[in-house]
């Protein structure tokens, strides 16, 4: 079922948790709400669920205005961050709870309730643990009980608050894959909240990036990574180097560069920041397009070589990550004078805070073919 949230605002005292947010989730979508803590992502999820009421705005589920419906009447399944399992009940009773509290007329017979709860436990691969108490389960198992419990009432929409937040890294990865598979089987419209960009990008069909109570950008993994709309998103989705520059027409001038770099979209001329990821930088012997730098330190960590360098023109420190097979790596030692080449980057107007139109971000590829030849 589709979800539509329209101009949702919510304040907690002086703090604006959500500021006129619009969100729409298509039927069968698996959508991530991604953002740092305090960005309003959990509040938005709880408002959709009906666990919180918005100060302003309406929530539509399957086209029907659900803003004034109680949480139990919205046909949602909610998975809490800390699972919120009923600790005095067995796993089976936890899963059966939603079926048992139905009004007598709609309630299934006891045998049917048991059967369905056991089926769900089988489905989440916890078949043998039905009589255990939540305290006797591992974190990953608890999470799956919480999921089975939410699915038992056959919700139209599944909402998950930081579903993997409390788990250790290995379990988290396994469970992530498992949840993706589950979604592909059930096709139930799902929204989950996370602060982990890797999790959001790997699991979701579409990612909504939130910051300070507003939505910064909505897109697929590729769209967000290749065309970040704002410096915030560029920064949030990975490490970023920021180089001060100047834009004139379709050219970007970096301090110390002999020639400008051509870009494929038009920016307002003036001061700008070039955002570039450490992995999108290459170092070469002097010559060619780029900026002169002096190597400060070189650190080898497994397959990646991290180089810290300083630009000659304005002494900006730049982090570079190179594959260790890069043939020139042995020559990169502290003090070496090299040329920094930008393989892919984004340009933002200086001091920009508001979400920018997508055309402002203009990643360009320069010499990718040649780079591959170098690496090989």
């Amino acid at each position: 079922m589709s979800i539509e949230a329209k101009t949702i605002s919510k304040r907690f005292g002086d703090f604006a948790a959500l500021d006129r947010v619009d969100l729409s989730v298509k039927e069968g979508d698996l959508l991530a709400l991604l953002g740092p803590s305090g960005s309003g992502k959990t509040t938005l999820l709880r408002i959709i669920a009906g666990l919180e009421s918005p100060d302003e705005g309406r929530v539509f589920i399957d086209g029907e205005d659900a803003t004034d419906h109680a949480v139990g009447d919205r046909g949602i399944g909610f998975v809490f961050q800390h699972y919120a399992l009923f600790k005095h009940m067995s796993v089976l009773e936890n899963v059966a709870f939603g079926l048992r509290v139905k009004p007598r007329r709609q309630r299934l017979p006891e045998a049917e309730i048991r059967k369905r709860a056991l089926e769900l436990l089988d489905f989440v691969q916890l078949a043998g643990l039905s009589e255990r108490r939540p305290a006797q389960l591992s974190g990953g198992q608890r999470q799956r009980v919480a999921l089975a419990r939410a699915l038992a009432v056959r919700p139209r929409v599944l909402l998950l608050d930081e579903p993997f937040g409390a788990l250790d890294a290995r379990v988290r990865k396994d469970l992530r894959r498992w949840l993706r598979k589950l979604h592909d089987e059930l096709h139930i419209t799902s929204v989950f909240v996370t602060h982990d960009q890797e999790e959001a990008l790997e699991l979701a069909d579409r990612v909504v990036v939130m910051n300070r109570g507003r939505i910064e950008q909505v897109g697929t993994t590729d769209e967000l990574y290749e065309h970040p709309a704002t410096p915030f998103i560029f920064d949030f989705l990975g490490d970023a180097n920021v180089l001060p520059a100047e834009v004139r027409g379709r050219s970007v001038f970096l301090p110390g560069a002999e020639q400008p770099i051509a870009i494929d979209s038009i920016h307002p001329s003036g001061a700008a920041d070039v955002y570039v990821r450490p992995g999108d930088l290459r170092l070469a012997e002097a010559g060619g397009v780029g900026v002169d730098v002096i190597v400060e330190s070189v650190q080898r960590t497994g397959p990646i070589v991290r180089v810290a360098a300083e630009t000659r023109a304005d002494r900006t420190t730049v982090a570079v990550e190179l594959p260790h097979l890069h043939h020139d790596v042995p020559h990169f030692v502290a003090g070496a004078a090299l040329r920094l080449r930008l393989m892919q980057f984004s340009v933002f107007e200086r001091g920009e805070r508001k979400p920018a139109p997508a055309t402002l971000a203009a990643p360009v590829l320069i010499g990718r073919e040649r780079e591959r030849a170098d690496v090989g």
Partner: protein
Amino acid sequence: MSAADWTAVFRAVRAPASRATSEPRAVRLALIAFALLFAGAFLVLPLATVFVSAFAKGALAFAEALREPDALAAVKLTLLIAAISVPLNALFGVAAAWAIARFEFRGKALLVTAIDLPLAVSPVVSGLIYVLCFGAQGVLGPWLMEHGVRIIFAVPGIVLATTFVTFPYVARELIPLLEEQGDEEEQAALSLGASGWQMFRRITLPNISLGLLYGVVLLNARAMGEFGAVSVVSGHIRGETNTIPLHVEVLYNEYQGQAAFAVASLLAGLAVITLVAKRLLERRIARASAKENA
């Protein structure tokens, strides 16, 4: 003290966990001896005296003192008072604790403070409050008399005074418990379609049951043992408005020492049962929370 506790004491005296962080042996021994002597002289000895004096003239005299009609009436009245004020205050305690732990509202701080009032004020004052409200010279007294309702020097007055004095026990026990547990489980129940009552009955109540029982045990002990407030409102009518504590006083004032102690031993017995129940509950609560955190 159980055998295990004693063993623990001796072991602690003999082998401190770490020499660097523990007091010299002499200091430890002196402190422990002082604590035990003090507890013995001021707690154990008087309690033992109650039972010894109660049986001073033999078991027959003990039984006689309890079978006496006025004593029986006092026991019945005490049970009746407890049977009314304990459920009343348990109900109020749960409601107040829930309201305070779960909702934000104007006057919440005032309510929290008001709950503690009976602990802060002398029981005599608690009794006087009701005399001043409902007594013959009180605010509502004349009106009540006109309509033939007796509150002061009657059972309703005793119930009111007892309920007032025992007001805080359950609420004070449950507020921190509810706050610590948070409302996620309750929200989960609601999201699964439970009604408010189903949520309370199936989720909240089982989670607070031990704490509630703990509060009720203390509440009951106080309700049955209350003297000051009840003394003011009861009027000391033998066989009618005397509770067990009041009856003990009457007997004692009439120089019936053995009978007074025999009746008093009922209260002392209640105290022992209360302490055992309290200890068992504390152990179960500790175990339950250890299991949760495992």
